């Protein structure tokens, strides 16, 4: 980086250097008046050097940066504390036509100049920003498409799943009509039937709500997070559920794990689902043997892992193949969506959700996530 003006003994070399550089080079005096404006700067901003020289550099900035810039200059001159110098920052620059482009600005102070003079280099970030945005959008689309693909797989299952409560409601209502038309209607029977119908209508609504959550194209909110904190936040919910079911919970968090980039809510959904499944699975086990363990660790560099294991019966051999298939369920009240959605979510985080059985008995589900610094 060019932080000081080279010796001026050969001004033609200097001029060639300035002309050749692809980044904009601008020098200003201590009041912000532009002195030098190279070719690249002309190209980038659309001004001729003559239009800018002698005017304040703030004409090249957006409203916000302009205010900040005046503040930085003042503060630096009063306190000597640099906000940009030697550090650089991303700024929004303004072209002659008023359009704005992202750029990386490096600023150096010209050595020995008094009053101080500054030299600024602007690197155009337009292409990189566009590429980043494109990549982000592509990822969002992929996530959405993968959710829709899951939905496609689920279409048959969905219709079946919704038809169950609808069938129950229709048949029960029709039975009620018949009962009411009979000579001596059993009103108690009708009352119970009405209650069941209401329950089934709610069941249908619940299925639809879950599906809507699945297909809604929500802008996922990725943030850097400590996986241990994410697990701990679920603590109260899980403990209450476990205690109510006579399940002992062990939470074994490896301290100091690297951060992960996740949609916190989504990963917590996955965890809740796994924890619920375990608590359910443990119901069939003898009292005193019901143990649930949540364990976090870094199995290898660039990865963190959360495992949810239990001492339940494990997954039946015939279920293993379609464990993550939508609507494959062994629960009488299950929709069979939980694990399918969970896997979709984890995969959208470039992670993996896997299962293995435990000896002598038990299930272990493992979420693997790439760490924040793992770019692969």
């Amino acid at each position, binding site marked *: 980086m060019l932080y000081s003006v080279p010796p001026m003994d050969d001004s033609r070399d200097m001029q060639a250097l300035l002309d050749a550089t692809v980044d904009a080079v601008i020098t200003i005096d201590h009041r912000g008046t532009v002195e030098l404006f190279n070719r690249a700067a002309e190209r980038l901003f659309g001004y001729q050097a003559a239009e800018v020289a002698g005017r304040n550099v703030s004409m090249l900035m957006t409203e916000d940066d302009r205010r900040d810039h005046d503040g930085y200059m003042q503060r630096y001159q009063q306190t000597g504390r640099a906000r940009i110098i030697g550090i650089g920052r991303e700024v929004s620059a303004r072209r002659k036509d008023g359009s704005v482009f992202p750029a990386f600005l490096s600023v150096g102070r010209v050595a020995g100049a008094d009053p101080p003079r500054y030299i600024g280099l602007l690197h155009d970030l337009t292409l990189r920003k566009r590429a980043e945005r494109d990549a982000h959008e592509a990822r969002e689309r992929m996530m959405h498409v993968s959710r829709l693909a899951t939905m496609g797989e689920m279409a048959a299952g969905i219709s079946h799943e919704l*038809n169950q409560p609808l*069938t129950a409601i*229709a*048949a*029960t209502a029709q039975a009620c009509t*018949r009962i009411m038309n009979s000579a001596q209607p059993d009103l108690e029977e009708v009352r119970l039937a009405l209650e069941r119908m209401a329950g089934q209508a709610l069941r249908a609504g619940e299925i639809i709500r879950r599906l809507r959550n699945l297909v809604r194209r929500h802008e996922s909110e990725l943030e850097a997070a400590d996986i241990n904190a994410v697990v701990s936040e679920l603590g109260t919910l899980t403990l209450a559920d476990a205690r109510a079911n006579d399940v002992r919970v062990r939470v074994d968090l490896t301290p100091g794990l690297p951060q992960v980039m996740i949609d916190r809510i989504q990963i917590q959904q996955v965890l809740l689902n796994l924890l619920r499944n375990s608590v359910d699975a443990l119901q069939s086990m003898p009292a005193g043997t019901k143990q649930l363990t949540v364990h976090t660790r870094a199995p290898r560099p660039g990865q963190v892992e959360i495992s949810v294991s239990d001492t339940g019966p494990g997954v039946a051999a015939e279920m293993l193949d379609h464990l993550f298939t939508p609507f494959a369920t062994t629960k009488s009240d299950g929709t069979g969506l939980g694990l399918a959605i969970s896997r979709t979510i984890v995969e959208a985080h470039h992670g993996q959700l896997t299962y293995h059985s435990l000896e002598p008995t038990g299930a272990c589900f493992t979420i693997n996530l790439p760490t924040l610094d793992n770019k692969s």
Partner: protein
Amino acid sequence: MSHPPPTVYIVDDDEAVRSALRLLMKSAGYTTVTFESAQEFLARYNAQQPGCLVLDVRMPGMSGMELQQELNRRGAILPVIFISGHGDIPMAVEAMHSGAFDFLQKPFKDQDLLDRVARALSSDSAARAEKLEVDHIRELLATLTPREHEVLDMVVSGKPNKIMAADLNLSQRTVEVHRARVMEKMHARSLAQLVRMMMTLEGRH
């Protein structure tokens, strides 16, 4: 033979659907027994009991289709009405090919199901009566001697006594005696009745 009331068997893994169908059948005056799985049905079903089966296609464990095939293997004559959560046409075709009585898509109109149940029960009752008759005819046939069998086959195929006597190398008189024994053993009052009995058997193999 006493005639126990026919039963509508309902097999569906969904408790809500089971109890709704039980109530619907009860409101229409039918006796029902419900099962939550195909295995449970197979374990408890008594083939002597007349009725029909309302069977969900899609169930964990043994599916409705597999149950139907198992019933076919066991030679059960119980009519099967399939109910399915998704109108899967190939599946319906396969079920009908395998001898399903009918195929209904969930949810359905009560009358649609009740009509089919009524028809299935009368079909079951007719099939059971026919089966009784066939069993009865087989019992009677088992009492014939080999010679009487030969005479029976010829009588049914319409051969006069004279031809039969020549073919069997017997006297006409002997043929007449055999023929009378066949009619008696088969409890047939006329040649027409004997022919109808044999046709009934053929229809059932």
